[in-house]
C-alpha cells in the first residue's frame, strides 16, 4: 500500500484547497447565500415516477447495486432518503435490494430515518431492505426475480455498476417500470441510455440529492465541487496552452503544470 506515485505534496495542497473551498461555501451558505442549481430532467423524473406508482398502486425499487461503503454510497443515500420519504408519504411499498452487507446496515438506517421524517416511522418494514447476494450475477438474477414478482412501477438504479447493469435495467424494462439510472461507471452509461427513461451521468449523481433536498450542507458541497472543477478546467486549459506553445516555439520556457502534482517528497529531502 505504501508508495503511491500520486501521493505527493501537490496532492496534499489540492486536498487542503478542496477542504478550504468546502468550508468557505458552507459558511457562505449558512449566511444565507442562495446557490443556483440548474434543472436536471432526470432528477425531476424521480418524483414523476413515484407519482405514477402512487396512481397505479405499484411498488418502487431502489438499488445501489455494487456500491460499497464510500462517497458514492453516500451520494446515493441522499436520493434514497428523498425517494423513501416520498414513498412513505404516498404509502407505497419500497424495496431496496442489497449487494453489500456493509452498505445494507447504512441503507436500512437511512430508509428508517426517511420514514421517521415523513411521520410514518411505524410503517417502516426492515424486510424491505433485502440482501440478495455479494456475487455479481447472483445479485443480478435475484434483482430480476424481485422486479418481476413485485411488478415494480418505478426502478431507480443509482451507484456503481459493472456488467450486470444491462440485466438490471432490462428487468425493469420488461415489467414496464419507469426507470431512472445514475452511474459513475462510464462504461455502463451507454446501456442505461438505451434502456432507462432517464440517465444521470457521472457527477449528476452527486448533485441529485442536493437538487432533491435543497439542504444547505449538500448545496454547499455541490457549489464547492463546481468551483474545484472550474479550477481543474482552467489548469487543463493552461497545460494544453503551455504544451502547445512549447511545441510551436522551440526553446520557449513554459511552466510544467503537471510537475507541481508529480513532484515527490524528495523535494523536502525527507529522510
Amino acid at each position, binding site marked *: *500500500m*505504501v*508508495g*503511491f506515485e500520486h*501521493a505527493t505534496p501537490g496532492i*496534499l495542497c489540492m*486536498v487542503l484547497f*478542496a*477542504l478550504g473551498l*468546502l468550508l468557505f461555501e458552507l459558511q457562505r451558505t449558512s449566511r444565507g447565500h442562495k446557490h443556483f442549481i440548474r434543472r436536471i430532467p432526470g432528477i425531476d423524473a424521480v418524483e414523476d415516477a413515484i407519482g405514477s406508482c402512487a396512481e397505479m398502486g405499484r411498488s418502487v425499487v431502489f438499488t445501489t447495486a455494487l456500491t460499497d461503503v*464510500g*462517497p*458514492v454510497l*453516500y*451520494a446515493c*443515500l441522499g436520493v434514497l*432518503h428523498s425517494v423513501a420519504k416520498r414513498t412513505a408519504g404516498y404509502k407505497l411499498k419500497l424495496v431496496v435490494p*442489497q449487494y*453489500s*452487507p*456493509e452498505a*445494507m*446496515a447504512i441503507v436500512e438506517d*437511512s430508509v428508517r*430515518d426517511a420514514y*421517521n421524517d415523513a411521520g410514518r416511522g411505524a410503517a417502516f418494514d426492515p*424486510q424491505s*431492505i*433485502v*440482501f440478495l447476494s*455479494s456475487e455479481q*450475477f*447472483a445479485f443480478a*438474477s435475484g434483482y430480476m*426475480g424481485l422486479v418481476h*414478482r413485485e411488478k415494480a412501477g418505478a426502478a431507480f438504479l443509482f451507484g456503481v455498476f459493472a*456488467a450486470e447493469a*444491462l*440485466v438490471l435495467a*432490462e428487468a425493469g424494462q420488461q415489467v414496464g417500470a419507469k426507470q431512472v439510472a445514475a452511474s*459513475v461507471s*462510464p462504461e455502463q452509461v451507454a*446501456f442505461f*441510455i*438505451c*434502456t432507462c427513461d432517464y440517465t444521470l451521468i*457521472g*457527477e449528476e*449523481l*452527486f*448533485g441529485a440529492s442536493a437538487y432533491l433536498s435543497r*439542504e*444547505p*450542507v449538500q448545496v454547499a*458541497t455541490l457549489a*464547492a*465541487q463546481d468551483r474545484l*472543477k472550474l479550477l481543474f478546467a482552467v489548469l487543463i486549459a493552461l497545460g494544453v496552452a503551455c504544451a502547445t506553445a512549447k511545441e510551436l516555439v522551440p526553446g520557449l520556457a513554459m511552466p510544467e503544470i503537471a510537475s507541481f502534482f508529480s513532484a515527490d517528497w524528495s523535494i523536502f529531502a*525527507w*529522510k
Partner: protein
Amino acid sequence: MEVRQAADRRAQIIRLFTLLGGVYFFAYFLLPESAIEAIGLKERQEPISNGFIAIGAMAIGLGLLNLVSAHGSRLAFRKKGWVYSLALLSGLFSMIVVTALQWRQSLGATAELRKIQVVSDFAQRISQDAEGQKPAPPLSTRIEALQRYASEQLSALDVGALSPGTSDSPLRGELRQSAQALREKISVAPAESGEALTPPTKEWLEAVAKAGSKLGAALSAYQRELASGTTVQQLYSLLYEGVFTQLGAAMFALLGVYIASAAFRAFRIRTVESALMMTAALVVMLGQISLGRMVSDQLPELRQWLLEVPNSAAFRAIRLGAAVAGLMLAIRMWLSIESRSFSSRKK
C-alpha cells in the same frame, strides 16, 4: 431525554472514529515509506487491516441474518413465492454445510503443507536477516536449526504422504523427487558457515529455499489430488463449479440477448442524437470485424479514432467530474459535516 443523550454520545464516538480513521488512511496514502516507518505506522498496518477484515466478516453475518429472516418468515407463513425461498435456503444451508466439512477435512493437510513451507521461509529469513545485519542468533546456529527442521519434516513426509502403503500416481512421483532434491540440498552443508554471510552460504540458502518451495507446491498438488476423490470434495465441486459457476455464466450469457434488444430500441432513429449514436455504433462495429475493411480501408482507423478521441474525452470528463465530486463528499464524510438526515440523531 436519556435516550437522546445516549444517541448523541454514540454519534460523537462514530464521528471521532471516522476522523481518526480518515487521518490514518490519509497519512498512509500520502507519506513516503521512510516517513511511515519513522512514525511507526507501518508496523500497525497489519492489525488495522485485520480489524477491517473482522468488521467485514461481521457484516457478512448481518447479510446472512437478513436472508434467513426474510426468506424464513416467507417459508414459515407460506407467503407468495415460498417455494423460491425454500430453494434459496436449501442452497444456502447445503453450501454452508459442505464448505464447513471441506474446511474441516483440509485442516490437517493445510498444517502439513505449512510445515513444509516454513523450510523455504526460514531459509529466506536467515539470508535476509544476515544481509540486513538484523539482531539474530549466530548464523551457524540458525543454519543447523534449518537443517534439523527440514530433516524432521522430510522424515514426517516419509511416514505420511510418501509412506509405502499409499497408492502411486504421477503427482506422488513428483513429490518424491522434490523431497529427494531437498534432502540432497540440506545434507550438503555450506562450504563455510561462520558469522558473516558468504556468497556460497547465500547460494546454499537460496537453493534450500527454492527446493522447499518446490516441495510445498508438489505437496499441495498431491493433497489436492487426494482430496478430489473424497465425497465432500465432490459435493463441493458439484455445488460450486457445477451449479453456482454455471448459473453465473448463464446470467452473463443473457447479456448477449439483452444487448441485442437494447440496441434495437436505441437504434430506432428518431432524433439527431440517436442518429449520431447509430452511426457511431455502426462504424465501431464494422471497424471491429474483417468485413469492415472490405467496405472501406479507412473504417478500422475511423473506429480507432472514435474510441480514442471523442469516446476517451467523454470518459475522462465523466471520471474527472465524479472524482472531484467524490473527493468533496469524502472530505465531508471525514469531517462528519453531514445533513440531519445522515446523522445518527434519532428521534
